């Protein structure tokens, strides 16, 4: 098992998700080389059940939320593949200010 695989996927929380999670980040899916975004979200919801109330619905993002892979690519597609070592940002879909 490579170091990156062992590190799993880091889920970072922003905005309301951060407030609900009560933390800035967690690491999930340790041991997998690649996994679906939906499985990453599911693992995050299992680790922090409070997320299921508002941000996540199983392996899906709830309305008003968006994921971003490695601070570059935005997606709401649960089937997108995420690699070990990647960072998934969970944030509100509205960037207005």
């Amino acid at each position, binding site marked *: 098992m490579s170091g990156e695989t062992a590190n799993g996927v880091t889920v970072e929380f*922003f905005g309301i998700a951060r407030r609900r999670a009560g933390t800035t980040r967690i690491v999930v899916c340790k041991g997998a080389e690649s996994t679906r975004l939906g499985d990453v979200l599911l693992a995050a919801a299992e680790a922090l059940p409070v997320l299921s109330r508002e941000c996540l619905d199983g392996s899906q993002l709830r309305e008003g939320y968006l994921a971003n892979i490695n601070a570059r690519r935005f997606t709401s*597609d649960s089937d997108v593949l995420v690699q070990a070592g990647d960072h998934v*940002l969970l*944030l509100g879909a509205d*960037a207005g200010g």
Partner: protein
Amino acid sequence: MASIPGYHGGYLRIDLTDRTSQRIEWPEGVLRRFIGGAGLGAWLLREETEGEVDPLAAEAPLVFVFSPLVGSPLTTSAKFAVLSKSPLTGRINDSLSSSHFAIAGKRTGHDAIVIVGSAEAATTAVVTSDGVRFESAESEWGLGSRETGQRVKQRLNRSGEGFQVAAIGPAGERLVRYATISHDARHAGRGGLGAVMGSKRLKAIAVAGDRRVEFADPGRLLEISKDLSKRSLGPATAKYRELGTIDNLVTFNRLGSLPTRNFQSGVFAEASSLAPESLEADRDRTRTSCAACTIGCEHIFPLARSGDGDGNEVGVRMEYENLFALGPLCGVSDPQTVLAASHRCDELGLDTISTGASIAFAMECAERGLVEIPGLRFGEGEAMLGMIDDIGHRRDWGDMLADGTRAAAERIGGGSHEFAPHVKGLEIPGYEPRAMQAMALGFAVGTRGADHNRSGAYEVDFSPDVDRIDASPQTIEPVVRVEDEAVLMDSLILCKFLRGVFEDRISGMAELLAPVTGWDVTPEELLETAGRIVTAKKAYNIAQGWTPAEDTLPLRFFEETLVEGESAGARLDPDRLSAQVKAYNLLRGWTAQGYVPDERLAVLGLT
């Protein structure tokens, strides 16, 4: 013209020079074609302007416009637009503000108030259902907008008339080219409307009345208002309710899109010190809302830390834009300093974005040795606070910076125009254009310059549809779409924080307009209306001397690559942006260069 539900049927034209006023009825068809707010204001500005005009000349019109939705039970509808030719940009400027002034203003019995001329001495215009009277404002001249508003209200409301007041602060009196017009600590902030008001020696305008409009289908209106209010309390607005827009700062920093040290970087190493958690750590935050709003996005922080005593009673409304502009953009990380800076801008009546950007620009000029301004360097909070005062009072270097970064760069020289952060003279808000390239296009083509309220193109960047640092041709249509949505929201008028509650925004707005006005508007008609209003603004600019060369960004964004954070490597490609601007123009029905053909004007009824 037959009376149209939601409207009073005409506007009031006040001439300050000869102290007269005149009621003018709307021509047939104008209301449906321009709706209200920014749209109707664009029509009025074109009507009231002959040839090129000096925005600070007596004859230049200043326009306050209400909307058909004001006074209805629809959430977030208590808003008004203020328009003029901008003394900062020389182009059209429409700025929106909110709350009780909109409701009281519409109760005067007019859908808009146009002000021309110039008073001989400091004046307050008092507008009621019975007409206009003019009072001396000599005793308020020199006061902040908040205190002015309080004093005028106290004086006028002795008999309980319910006057509401919009006023300027010292910056407006001194014609600072990004001075605001303020009401109840909310601001028509951008582009220098306060300077236009100051040039007319109009310190304040007070409004009250008892005229109410009829609505076409009150039962249906109540029904959809209740539904909209319910939806406005859902997840789409949770960020605004719980955290406020200041929450953007941490997210943007993570994405490498937080403008820092005059747009030299997209990352601010000390961003966490300005995060909502940090601001809340030793301060009791409170929350409030505009009149007729269920969202309540306004997060107020005490000026002093809990237990500090003096100043704790003074609240400062913090938004992302003042936080970024007076924080990272100037390299300042101390929350107390940023709160104090924001408060000073509010009191003086200064647009926080242009103020922060002008000071950040001066800081970079100083660090490059182009100017010698004692102590003014990135991160020096006290120097920033002092410069805000100097700008507001046009003292020393502040006098030069009071004209904005474009004018300052012309005077400083030394190539500083390459990093003066503006488009068409309007300072760039808190969206790093290299890291958000759909937004870069939105900035470039914006009729009032770089602006996040007229173009919501950041939504395109924050979507799965595009690569935000490598924008493709697919960007163009969504950029037009969000600009159309914005111009409609600014014309109905609705708060943009409602955007997320509509499944389809255009259809949603058509649905709201029908029971108010009785018009069977379709989404297609509304989209055509959006195109008409954007084109009317463009036609105004062309008449005021616009050239295609203005539709671009400063050289920095093309020549300097971002080197830090998650947007490292990003820069704008001039050829690509130029091609996108041309494609945008063609999609609008204009020439590739951005001129509006006569046939297009005719089709839209703009001749």
